[in-house]
């Protein structure tokens, strides 16, 4: 649905985006990852038409991105705020109307969402009287109120307590189930693994990795397994695998090992079952966190 093609953005003295291309599929949650200053915000600002690229183009639903698309995109920036002296209800109404909703329609939707997010009594409260987390809820609401096809969230969970983070996460998943596409920019890798279907990793203005989360993780498998067991054997001299790590756990021992040659996990398991009591067996797959760090360090 969104196709970013060969975007270059040059600021005085440095290149923020260098020939970046990526595809966001309809109805998916797309993770835009990268260290601070990599160029994520520059890219988002181009997609939201806050700035224009020096070269390259963005295609939205088959059309070249234009001002008609503004109302179909919702954007929650990382640096976000509200008018401090304005009342909450009035404020969300204002933002919704700027996105093209009529007063009646906007009021109806705001009431619905206020109830859904447990902030029904806040209509007349002023922003300056709310905590940061509460403000975040209002901002999230302002982002999605006009039912956009594409929602871009930049660090949506920062500032939320676990209960409210969960509430927001569920809303994201619910909207996604109804077909809304998300772009999700974050440093928090656990939420990437939890939510994202696809990712792109940007570092130093260039895209260095992209693809489906499952595929990326699969490609980083290296036949390493972790096993917890009770028994005397230490498997020091097995010809099926090399032991990488040994440790003691609560009710037994634990080792991490890497298979040799063409042996499979089943081979190793069969061999071990004959020697010890196995409590736990799992493949060690690198987390997105590890992949992220590995790529960025390179």
């Amino acid at each position, binding site marked *: 649905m969104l196709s970013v093609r060969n975007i270059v953005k040059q600021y005085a003295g440095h290149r923020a985006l260098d020939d970046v291309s990526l595809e966001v599929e309809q109805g998916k949650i797309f993770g835009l990852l990268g260290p601070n200053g990599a160029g994520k915000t520059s890219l988002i*600002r181009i997609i939201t*038409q*806050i700035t224009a690229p020096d070269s390259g183009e963005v295609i939205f639903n088959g059309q070249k991105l234009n001002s008609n698309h503004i109302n179909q995109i919702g954007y929650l*920036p990382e640096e976000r*705020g509200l008018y401090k002296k304005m009342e909450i209800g009035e404020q969300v109404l*204002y933002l919704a109307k*700027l996105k093209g909703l009529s007063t009646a329609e906007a009021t109806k939707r705001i009431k619905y969402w206020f109830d859904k997010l447990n902030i029904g009594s806040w209509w007349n409260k002023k922003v300056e009287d709310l905590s940061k987390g509460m403000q975040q809820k209002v901002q999230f609401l302002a*982002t999605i109120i006009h039912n956009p096809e594409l929602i871009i969230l930049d660090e949506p969970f920062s500032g939320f307590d676990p209960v409210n983070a969960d509430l927001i996460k569920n809303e994201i998943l619910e909207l996604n189930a109804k077909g809304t596409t998300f772009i999700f920019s974050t440093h928090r890798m656990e939420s990437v693994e939890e939510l994202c279907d696809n990712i792109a990793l940007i570092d130093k203005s260039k895209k260095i990795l992209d693809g489906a989360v499952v595929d990326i993780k699969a490609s980083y498998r290296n036949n390493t397994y972790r096993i917890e067991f009770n028994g005397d054997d230490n498997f020091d001299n097995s010809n099926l695998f090399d032991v990488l790590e040994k440790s003691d756990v609560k009710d037994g021992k634990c080792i991490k090992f890497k298979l040799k040659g063409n042996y499979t996990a089943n081979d190793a398991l069969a061999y071990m079952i004959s020697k010890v009591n196995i409590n736990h067996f799992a493949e060690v797959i690198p987390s997105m966190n590890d992949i992220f760090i590995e790529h960025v360090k390179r």
Partner: protein
Amino acid sequence: MNKILLIIKREYLSRVKKKSFLIMTFLTPLIIAGFYGLIIYFSIKGINDKTDKVAVINENKTLTEKLASNKNVTYEYVDKSFENLKKNLNKSDYDYILYLPDFNIDKPEGIELIGTKQAGLTLDGRISDSIEDLIRDYKLKKSGISQTDLDNLKSKVSILTKKIGNTGKEENSSAGASTIIAFVAGVLMFMFIMLYGVQVMRGVIEEKTSRIIEIMISSVKPFQLMMGKIIGIAMVGLTQFLLWIILTFSISALAVSIFVSKEDAKKIVASSSQVTGTNPGTQQFQAAARSDSPFGNVQKSLENLDLGKIIAVFVFYFLGGYLFYSALYAAIGSAVDSETETQQFMMPVMMPLLLGYALSLSVVTNDPYGNVAFWLSMIPFTAPIAMVVRLPYGVPGWELALSMAILIIGFIGTVWFAARIYRVGILMYGKKASFKEMVKWFWYKG
């Protein structure tokens, strides 16, 4: 376009609903009406109600003519010794003792004024004027001028200035009235542009520091946001101006009907009708000369000035000047992170406005048709103030039209210039902006 309207509405309502706006709007006319009331009051009563009683001890042999008492000072010649009177001054009912020693008439020295309290500058001046008059009269008489001639020499003059209007008709005018209007208009214009220009800047800074700006510009174009804010605040200014005019007139009318007694009111009417006369020309001139109420004169001239035109032109120049400057203020606001950082940018924007203000109220009021006045009212940086100051004195139509045209081109220019800086500035956080940086932003693409 619809989005700009929404922004204008918010900017307007959020300011008009503020308590400070309401207080300013209602308090200012009260203050203006208060001043107006004071002027009326003093024009009736005279500024100094109190008459000082002065005991005169004259030891001068030449100056035998006595000082004449007037409504401010009563002179009483006493035949006591200076020392004796000094000691008993507190017990006596005199306020001051004036001691005139036997000085040389060509070199009056050693005159003393002693009182229970320090004599003010006004009294000092009045007494020395009286003595100077006395000495002059003495000298004139000595050179052979008779008392009747001397009396004839004294005349009180009040000039009724007039000008020939565009229609060729003679119009009553008073340099005093024009100057008052010019000053008021100049000060108001300066205040309005400053006050509301700075409000635009504050608004931009507020949006930037509260970070709402990022949310806003994902919905609207920076130019729309900037123009919406500028226009919304301009409407706040117009609302305030309109309310001030309405309130000032109604409060003044109310105050006059309550505080000014009927007799005083008659006096005002009498004094002004005295000036008005029915026949133009010499009769009026004489009437004016007889009248010792400058108030009536000014009042009449005020009626002759086309207040409607002045207000309309004022509103135009307020809008033009405000748009011209507020765009620059918006650019400044976009470049900084807090109000404390605005200083270095404010100076170059403030300077032409201050210069225009200072020159308008000095040079232009002195010579409203001169070269300086002409050029100041053409250059868009100074035109808003200079032109409204010139206006009560009369400005040729073509000059007004040219100045307005230049101002319109001027503000389109500053708005365009400011918008290019604004769109980049609002997204720059934590960077300390410089003029060099701002020039760079100006040339950014897209």
